């Protein structure tokens, strides 16, 4: 059976706001835009909304250049708050 979800990984302040490190979101077989996926995510976890405004997004280990990029079942999606290493 093909995958029907996208696994979203939340880091640092995004994880703290959501209270969890990963979320599985169901997506249609034809996929949806990253923008629609984020809408879905905010609906599911409202506390994430303010954090998401300062985040970068990653699909399958590549930074998303545009929120119109398509996300398909089986993809991995990551939410990166501003970096703070060092």
């Amino acid at each position, binding site marked *: 059976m093909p995958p029907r979800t996208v696994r979203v*990984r939340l*880091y*640092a*302040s995004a994880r*703290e706001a959501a209270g969890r490190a990963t979320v599985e979101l169901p997506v249609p077989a034809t996929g949806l835009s990253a923008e629609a996926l984020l809408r879905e995510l905010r609906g599911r976890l409202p506390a994430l909304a303010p954090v998401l405004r300062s985040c970068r997004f*990653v699909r399958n*280990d590549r*930074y998303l250049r545009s929120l119109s990029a398509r996300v398909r079942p089986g993809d991995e999606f*990551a939410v*990166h*708050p501003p*970096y*703070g*290493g*060092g």
Partner: protein
Amino acid sequence: MEVRLTRRPLSVGAAYRALERPGAGGIVVFVGRVRGDVTRAGRVVALDYEADAPLAIRALDRVVRRTRARHSAVRLLLWHRVGRLRVGEVSVIAGAACGHRAAAFAAARRLIEELKRSVPIWKTDRARPARRPPRRRPRRTGRRAG
């Protein structure tokens, strides 16, 4: 190794030895350590460092590549630790070996600044409350200078 992302303690001695190359007239090593600052949540006893590892390693590589091009370095290194680090432990080492000292200072500085800006690594404070009974509470923002 030029870049390293590891859960194991970082050795400043090993970093320095990796930088000793012929032609390296000036070597600068920057070491970032966890500080026990006092925050609203209490005194920081540890920092939890996490990374999006595949991207972080690529980003570390890119920082080194760009820095080498700008400062004609003989040898560079950029090592970061992840996991729970107690106060006083080393979180990051940025090292530059160049022909001349000005380039070595500039390259080491650039490595750490670019790392902070562009490498997907985060830290979260673990503080011990000052006047309340001890409990662990995660905090969003780091409290060290790195």
